[in-house]
C-alpha cells in the first residue's frame, strides 16, 4: 500500500478504502456539534429532509455564542434548540457550561483517530487529540444529521516540524501566531497541517488545542498533532504517518529564539514581535475564547498579576473556556488572584470574541485579546482596533495600560 499521512489514514479508516490527497470520498462521521449561531439553520434544513437524527448519541448542541441570550430574538433561537434537543434526546449544553470546543474535548465527545465535524470553523481544534476535525456550515451539518456521512476532498498535507525549546513567556499562541504570519491568511488553504517536533511533544493537551485552533486562520481544513507526548486517561491507538508519506510541503522551524508574537489590526496574519507594538495604549483587555481561556492560560495571567492591580484606564474581562475551567480556577485560587488584581469574570462562553454581547469595545478603543480573530468588526465594533496575543501579553498589558512584555 502507498504510504499515507495521518490525514489520509484517518480518512481512509472512515471511507472503507484507501484514499489519498485530492481524491473525493464519502466518510462516516463519528461526531457532530452545532452552536446557537449555526444550529437553528441546521435544524431548519434538517427538518425539511428528515425527522430523526441518524444517531442521537453522536450529536451535541451548545449554547455559547450569545448565551445567556442578550435579546428576545436569540432567546427564541435558544428555545428552538432546547426543544429540538428534547425531541431528539440529544445532549444540549446550556448557557454558561462553556465554549463548544472545550466541552467536546473535556467531555470526551471526540477521541483520537476519529472524524468530527462541527458547525463552527474552529472545530479544527480537536486535531490536538490526533483526530481529524473540521468546520462545516449549517446545511452540510444537516446533511450529516440525516445520513451520518459527508463528502469531502482529501486534503493535501503540510508537515510543520517545530524544534527547539520555547523561551519563558512564549507559548503555543506565539507559535501559531508566528506561523500565521509566515504562511499568511490563505497560506494553507484546503490543506491539513500535521504538527510534530520537540515543541509539540512538550505541549500539554491545552496547548495543543491552542495550536490547532488557529490553523483555520491560514485557511487550513484541519490541523493534527503528532501523538508523541500526549497522555490521555483512556486507552487509544496513536496514528502516525508512514515513512515516505507524501507531503505537499515540509516546513521546519527552530523556535528556541522565538519572541512573544502579536497580530496587529485587522487580520490574524498581520503578525510581528510584540516589541513592534510596545507602548500602544489599551483600554480593554480580554482573556477568553476557544484559543486561550483554559486553566493554564488563567494561571499564567494570575502569576503575572498576583498582588498587583491592573491600570485604572483598563478593563480586564475573563471568560473561562468552560464552567469546569472556572471551577478549577476557583479551587486553586487562580480566580481570586485575578479578581483581586481587578479582572472581572463573565459567563463562560464566546461573548466578546464574536461581538455578540458581554463586552463590545467603543469607537476608537484599542483592545488586546487572547482570541483568534481580529477582522474589522469582529468584536462587535468596526471602529475599534484589536490586537491578538497570548494570555501573558494580555495580562502584562492590562497591568501597564499599554501593550507590554511581562517584567
Amino acid at each position, binding site marked *: 500500500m502507498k504510504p499515507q499521512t495521518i490525514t489520509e489514514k484517518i480518512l481512509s479508516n472512515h471511507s472503507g478504502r484507501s484514499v489519498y490527497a485530492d481524491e473525493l470520498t464519502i466518510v462516516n462521521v463519528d461526531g457532530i456539534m452545532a452552536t446557537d449561531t*449555526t444550529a437553528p*439553520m441546521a435544524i431548519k434544513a434538517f427538518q425539511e429532509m428528515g425527522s430523526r437524527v441518524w444517531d442521537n448519541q453522536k450529536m451535541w448542541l451548545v449554547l455559547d455564542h450569545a448565551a445567556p441570550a442578550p435579546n428576545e430574538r436569540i432567546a427564541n433561537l435558544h428555545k428552538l434548540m432546547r426543544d429540538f434537543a428534547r425531541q431528539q434526546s440529544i445532549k444540549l449544553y446550556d448557557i454558561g457550561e462553556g465554549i463548544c470546543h472545550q466541552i467536546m474535548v473535556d467531555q470526551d465527545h471526540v477521541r483520537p483517530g476519529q472524524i468530527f465535524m462541527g458547525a463552527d*470553523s474552529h472545530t479544527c481544534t480537536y486535531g490536538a487529540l490526533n483526530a481529524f476535525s473540521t468546520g462545516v*456550515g449549517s446545511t452540510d451539518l444537516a446533511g450529516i444529521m440525516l445520513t451520518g456521512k459527508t463528502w469531502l476532498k482529501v486534503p493535501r498535507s503540510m508537515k510543520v516540524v517545530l524544534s527547539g525549546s520555547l523561551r519563558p513567556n512564549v507559548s503555543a499562541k506565539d507559535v501559531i501566531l508566528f506561523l500565521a504570519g509566515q504562511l499568511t491568511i490563505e497560506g494553507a488553504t484546503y490543506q491539513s497541517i500535521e504538527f510534530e517536533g520537540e515543541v509539540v511533544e512538550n505541549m500539554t493537551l491545552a496547548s495543543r488545542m491552542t495550536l490547532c485552533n488557529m490553523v483555520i486562520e491560514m*485557511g487550513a481544513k484541519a490541523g493534527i498533532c503528532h501523538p508523541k507526548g500526549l497522555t490521555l486517561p483512556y486507552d487509544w491507538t496513536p496514528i502516525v504517518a508512514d515513512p515516505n508519506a507524501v507531503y505537499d510541503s515540509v516546513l521546519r522551524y527552530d523556535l528556541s529564539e522565538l519572541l512573544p508574537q502579536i497580530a496587529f489590526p485587522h487580520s490574524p496574519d498581520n503578525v510581528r514581535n510584540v516589541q513592534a507594538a510596545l507602548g500602544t495604549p489599551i483600554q480593554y483587555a480580554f482573556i477568553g475564547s476557544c484559543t486561550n481561556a483554559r486553566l493554564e492560560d488563567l494561571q499564567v495571567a494570575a502569576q503575572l498579576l498576583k498582588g498587583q492591580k491592573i491600570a485604572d484606564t483598563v478593563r480586564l474581562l475573563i471568560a473561562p473556556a468552560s464552567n469546569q475551567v472556572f471551577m478549577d480556577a476557583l479551587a486553586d485560587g487562580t480566580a481570586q488572584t485575578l479578581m483581586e488584581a481587578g479582572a472581572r469574570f463573565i459567563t463562560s462562553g464566546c461573548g466578546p470574541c464574536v461581538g455578540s454581547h458581554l463586552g463590545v469595545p467603543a469607537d476608537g478603543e484599542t483592545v488586546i485579546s487572547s482570541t483568534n480573530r481580529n477582522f474589522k468588526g469582529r468584536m462587535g465594533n468596526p471602529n475599534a482596533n484589536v490586537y491578538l496575543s497570548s494570555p501573558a501579553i494580555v495580562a502584562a498589558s492590562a497591568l501597564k495600560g499599554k501593550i507590554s512584555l511581562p517584567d
Partner: protein
Amino acid sequence: MVFSYGDNIDTDRIIPGKYTKTLDMSQLAAHVLEDLDPAFKDTVRQGDVVAAGFNFGCGSSREQAPIALKMAGVAVVIARTFARIFYRNAINVGLPLLEIREHDIAPADSLTYDLKTGQVTNHTKQKTYQAAPMPQVMIDILNEGGLVAYLKKNGDYKI
C-alpha cells in the same frame, strides 16, 4: 451591475457576527457587507455580480454569509480563489460561484456569464475568462438548487 472588492474579504465583513443569530433571512440582506461597503445593501439589485480577489469568504463557517449575498440579490460571486468552507456553504445554499484565478473585473465592467461552462465574457475589456471546474458532486448539488433539495432527491451523497 458589478461590485468589485479586494483580497481576503472575511465573513465578518460579509455579515458581522452580531447579526447572524436569526432565522429571518431578510435581516441578513439588510446588513450584508455593511462594514466593507456601506452603500452596497441599498444599491445592489437582483442579478448583480460580486467580483473579488483571493480567499473570498475566509474566517467563520457561518452560512449566513452566502445567504446574505443571495438574499440581497447577488446572482454569482466571481473570485480569484474562495475560502473552502464558504465555497461549500455557497453551493449548499444555491449561490453560484466562479473561481477565476486571472481576472481583472472592475466595477463598471459589463459581463455575461455561463454557469454551465464557467465562461465569463467581459464586454468592456473585450476578454473572456474560464472558471476552474467544480467537482461533479458540487455541480449536482448546485443543479438541484442546494444540498437540501439534493438530499431530498437522492437520500445520500453520490460521488
